[in-house]
């Protein structure tokens, strides 16, 4: 990318936008390879290299810089952010026609260049094909996308995250210019308040109110902190925004800084996101060079600086007071509130802490107004929400839907139903702090208040879909193991309570549970929820409480009937040999590591249940399917 000149006025920003837009739109074909973490790991760099070579071989005039003069047959090639449909990566998109290729390999490059880039034809074998064999060539036609509403992710997957001008061409930083040159801080806060934007990180606290508190506190120094310590298993909403559209986050933070009177911001991003960190660093450098960040932004009077702080891997650092402690170089442990960060946050100064998705919504709200924002979502949960859908679902990936979209629409319309063909059992929403939703909740609108009413939470937006073969006691155990490990160990209830809940759950799935265990588990869970210090502890029992509520019969089956209804828990499995099917070949007996199988050759073998360790080696060994579980 050629260097961006220092912009000294909103006018110059508008001119750069026009110039970039013109360059992009002058008949230029853009080939964008998904540069999200998933596609990168799946071979996107090789695809990009192959495309580059194919273009050169085809004699195409490849533009490396957006602002290069367009010539005949000119094409640009680059990485985009994550378009969300990770299931089918690596993804290649061709703009402006918006042809969407899936599962692309380097071997496909020549054909893509020859057919699509040069002649505008679609390579049929590379487009998405659904279960019925219907092909969808364009992104917006895909079932995965057609019911989504993209606000935060609108430009993710279209623009090149490494080129600030691509963002500017999409009205990037226009909100910032309008905010600092045309609006008072009070007006911004009231616009955000009016929009009904609520924190996208889990709690759902109204963002405008948080800003208003901090704005009112008198202090020469204030901070903006972006919580990018996304830690829920399977969640990558914030990661994708940072990787795909880092400037949206920066712009949101700068506007927030102007609104509350802060001149410095921190992005606390987990170190496990190296690509996000690299893209943020590039974005910060470019924004600084363009005078959109740093001293006297656009030569006005407002200055704002952003620093990146890499987290060291503790889940609890997603809790705002622990996060602040971690930035300060202390052990990441939550502290009691009050005082709230609005009064005493980073280094004891008034601080606004919001998550990535929240900040990324702000430029859109300033640009399009509160009324526009409220047109999405429900009365109390305005706007859209990004969810990461995963588990036993056909289309895993990142989606964005208006708040209030029903669970059923997300799972069946966008998610394409269950992958295995099995029937739907439950979804875990909100990660390890969340709860499970079942069949009875399929028509439940996914918004803050509806979810709260059934004891669940939006959380950061992770949705794990589970089919009928899932043992819900095991699900509770899995999440409890996670929170138990990630508890900071400060308050008694969370530290000791998660340990004991895990111990009881292990006992139940291990076949040694009792009915008393279930009531003790429930008592501990309720108490840990009621009495813990921070959000992690207060929500850690949610998986237990919600599975107890909806699937108590599964717990009882484990402890009373001595079986796991889903057939998942190893300790309840028994391996035996079907005498009818057994040919007496002795292979299973040879493979058994503990010599639990005995018999005469050519007559049926028998498994000694006491000696059996349930490893399953005999199942794999038997050629006649004679081992029954």
């Amino acid at each position, binding site marked *: 990318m050629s260097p961006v000149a220092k912009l000294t006025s909103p006018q110059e920003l508008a001119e750069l936008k026009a110039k970039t837009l013109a360059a992009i739109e002058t008949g230029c074909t853009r080939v964008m390879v998904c540069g999200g973490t998933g596609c990168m790991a799946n071979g996107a760099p090789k695809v990009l290299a192959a495309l580059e070579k194919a273009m050169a071989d085809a004699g195409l005039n490849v533009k490396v810089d957006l602002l290069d003069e367009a010539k005949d047959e000119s094409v640009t090639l680059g990485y985009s952010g994550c378009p969300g449909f990770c299931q089918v990566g690596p993804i290649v998109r061709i703009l402006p026609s918006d042809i969407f290729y899936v599962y692309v390999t380097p071997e496909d490059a020549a054909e893509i260049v020859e057919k699509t880039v040069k002649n505008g034809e679609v390579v049929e074998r590379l487009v998405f094909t659904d279960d019925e064999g219907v092909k969808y060539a364009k992104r917006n036609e895909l079932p995965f996308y057609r019911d989504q509403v993209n606000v935060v992710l609108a430009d993710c997957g279209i623009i090149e995250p490494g080129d600030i001008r691509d963002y500017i061409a999409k009205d990037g930083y226009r909100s910032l210019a309008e905010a600092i040159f045309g609006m008072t801080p009070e007006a911004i806060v009231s616009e955000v308040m009016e929009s009904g934007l609520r924190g996208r990180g889990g709690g759902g606290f109204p963002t405008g109110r948080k800003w208003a508190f901090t704005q009112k506190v008198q202090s020469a120094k204030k901070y903006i902190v972006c919580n990018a310590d996304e830690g829920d298993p399977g969640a990558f909403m914030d990661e994708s925004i940072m990787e795909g559209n880092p400037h949206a986050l920066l712009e949101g933070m700068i506007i927030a800084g102007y609104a509350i009177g802060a001149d410095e911001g921190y992005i606390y991003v987990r170190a496990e996101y190296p690509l996000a960190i690299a893209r943020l660093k590039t974005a910060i450098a470019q924004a600084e060079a363009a005078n959109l960040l740093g001293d006297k932004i656009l030569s006005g009077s407002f200055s704002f600086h952003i620093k990146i702080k890499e987290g060291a891997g*503790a889940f*609890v650092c997603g809790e705002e007071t622990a996060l602040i402690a971690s930035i300060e170089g202390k*052990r990441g*442990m939550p*502290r*009691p*509130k*009050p005082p709230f960060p609005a009064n005493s946050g980073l280094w004891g100064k008034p601080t606004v802490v919001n998550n990535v998705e929240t900040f990324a919504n702000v430029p859109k709200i300033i640009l399009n107004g509160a009324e526009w924002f409220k047109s999405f979502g429900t009365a109390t949960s305005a706007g859209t929400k990004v969810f990461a859908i995963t588990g036993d679902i056909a289309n895993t990936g990142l989606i964005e839907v208006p708040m209030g979209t029903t669970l059923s629409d997300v799972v069946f319309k966008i998610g394409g139903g269950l992958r295995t063909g099995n029937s739907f059992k439950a979804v875990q929403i909100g990660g390890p702090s969340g709860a499970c939703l079942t069949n009875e909740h399929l028509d439940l609108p996914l918004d803050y208040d509806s979810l709260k009413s059934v004891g669940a939470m939006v959380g950061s937006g992770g949705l794990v879909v589970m089919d009928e073969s899932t043992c819900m006691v095991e699900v509770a155990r899995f999440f409890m193991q996670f929170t*138990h*490990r*990630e*508890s*900071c*160990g*400060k*308050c*008694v*209830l969370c*530290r*000791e*309570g*998660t*340990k*004991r809940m895990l*111990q009881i759950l292990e*006992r139940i799935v291990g076949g040694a549970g009792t009915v008393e265990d279930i009531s*003790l588990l429930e*008592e*501990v869970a*309720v*108490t840990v929820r*009621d*009495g*813990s*210090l921070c959000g992690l502890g207060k929500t850690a029992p949610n998986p237990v409480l919600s599975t107890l509520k909806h699937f108590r019969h599964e717990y009882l089956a484990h402890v009373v009937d001595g079986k796991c209804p889903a057939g998942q828990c190893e300790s309840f499995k028994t391996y035996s040999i079907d005498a009818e099917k057994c040919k007496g070949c002795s292979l299973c007996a040879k493979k058994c590591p503990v010599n639990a199988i005995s018999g005469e050759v050519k007559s049926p073998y028998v498994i000694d249940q006491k000696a059996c360790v349930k490893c399953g080696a005999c199942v794999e060994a038997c050629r006649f399917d004679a081992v029954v579980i």
Partner: protein
Amino acid sequence: MEGFVTVDGVKVAIGDEKNLLEVIRKSGVDLPTFCYHSDLSVYGACRMCIAEVEGRGIQPTCSTPPEDGMVVKTNTEAALRIRRMSLELMLANHHGNCQTCEKNTHCRLQELAERMGVKEIRFEDPKEELLPIDDSNESLVRDPNKCILCGDCVRMCKEVQGIGVLDFAGRGSDARVTPAFGKDLKQVECVFCGQCVSICPTGALTVKNKIDDVWAAIHDKSKKVVVQIAPAVRAAVALEFGIHGGEEAMAKSVTALRRMGFDKVYDTSFAADLTTVEEATEFLTRVESGEKLPQFTSCCPAWVKFAEQFYPDFIGNLSSCKSPQQMFGSLIKEYMGEHDSLGREEVYVVSVMPCTAKKFEAKRREFMVDGVQDVDAVLSSQEMIKMIRMSGLNLAMLPPESMDLPFGFKTGAGVIFGASGGVAEAVLRLAAAGTRTDGRTLEFKEVRGLEGLKEASIQLGDKTIRLAVLSGLSNARTVLEKLRKGEVEYDIIEIMACRGGCIGGGGQPLPNDMEARETRKNMLYDCDAVQPLHNAADNPYVKEAYTSMLGKPNGKVAHKLLHTSYRSRRRIQGEQVELTEVSEVDEKIPVSVCVGTNCYLKGSYDTLNKLTELAKQAGVADKLDFKATFCFEKCKQSPNVRVGDTVYGGITPEKAVEFFNQTVKAAAEKGKVAVKK
């Protein structure tokens, strides 16, 4: 904050309470806590102080500011359930060998479990292996298996003592309180003040018990067992046994100790008087010469270790006087050697101290002669109380007896050593004796009290003496930092590690909170008031000691018996590495090259090699004694080389030749440099 809070239906006015918990306690509800202490920062981890606040649900009251109109219920179903569950969870994870625990019957966990009616632990005994107990040092024992992670010790050490040797490590149920890198307390910068022991609610931190050693000495017929009792002990004993006044408690203790079998019972306050005379003399000499000011007191071994570790540049300012405990130890062994013809090992000196660091002090190599300690065993006040109870003695019923002479006689000045400001006041009384003629007592009330930082200016004749009295080592840190920067000036500074002075020492019985310290402090000043003499210099037995044994204050003999020296503990405790063979000629000139990190990185190792090579070439190698050493505390001018007593900076390998020729070779040829003997 004005207004009222309704606590369980009762309206309570909000006063100057910082939090709801204090308002609730004021209302008569003793809401229990493990981690809340008014002198420490709010931590909010024990979950015992929760209550239901109308409109807000369950809240930890320790971190909730009181607001007008708040309606609080302390014993709702949820509140009781949370408290009891928290206790049950703590107990499930606690190595509960209560009957044999040092803290038995003084344990807060035990007390609250009983109070809250926790009768059953329904969780599986983890049967985990017990973590190792740290009893590496002389003063404290740390048993992590009894720790409930309330963090009181962590905050005490960091916030009040300004050190922070303890902190949390590990996450979740692996979380534990530990010195850095799992080291023992002996290996880290612990000053053994024992304030962590005073605040620990369980048996996780306790005083190292030496009772059995003392009994063994008493039962050993070949030993004369002599005991000295420190000033602050009397107040603690009085409170513990419900005896009116420290003097009476002391007199009854004398009876008890004699009945237990101690041969002689003396008062450390006598040695305190001696300290006052020595220290005042030293101070007046320094004022005269204007050198090594401000003078720091050196009675507190925790403070001395703190200074050696963190402020070695101020070591010269420390009074060279031994602490009263150690003055007593060396004096008594000398005295009994002369009077009773007893060898050093035949006299077994026990001291009873309010302090845990005194146990460490007694083991310092400076306080040993021929491998025999001046003070053989140090008991804390807690331990003496335990011994009295073990002996079945009902202290309150015992008749009072007086101490043995001559070392059982003291002035009031010696007694007030036990309270912060006492040493300063004792020195002032002596120094002012000639200048004030107006009354019987010379009281300096401006230096009294539990505040951590007290300042005063005292007119002594034509001189104004600016003094500071500090307690709590974080206050010492604050003032020393200012002194370094030249922001403050004083002539004499009294520093005691524990808040309020020795009355709040880590070896005192529990509770050892500020309320208890206030009562003990007042008792000591009452003890002072009833003494016939108040100026240490007036103590007839002190005078006698000078006449018969010590000569003049600060004189030669006094120096040998009553003074000491200190050393920097800033760096690794590495001994010097001998590089040249020890030859018969002991007139070699020592050349030490620092190979500490800073000097090493700037090439000191190469410098050392070059210098030794040059010495060989010049044929003077046998006259030089090369050593690789660690840190002269002059890192800014590294690499450093010391020849004789002089440290030369900036001796990079490039400058080695020039330096060798000008300095080392010259010294070797001359055969003489300034070497301290």
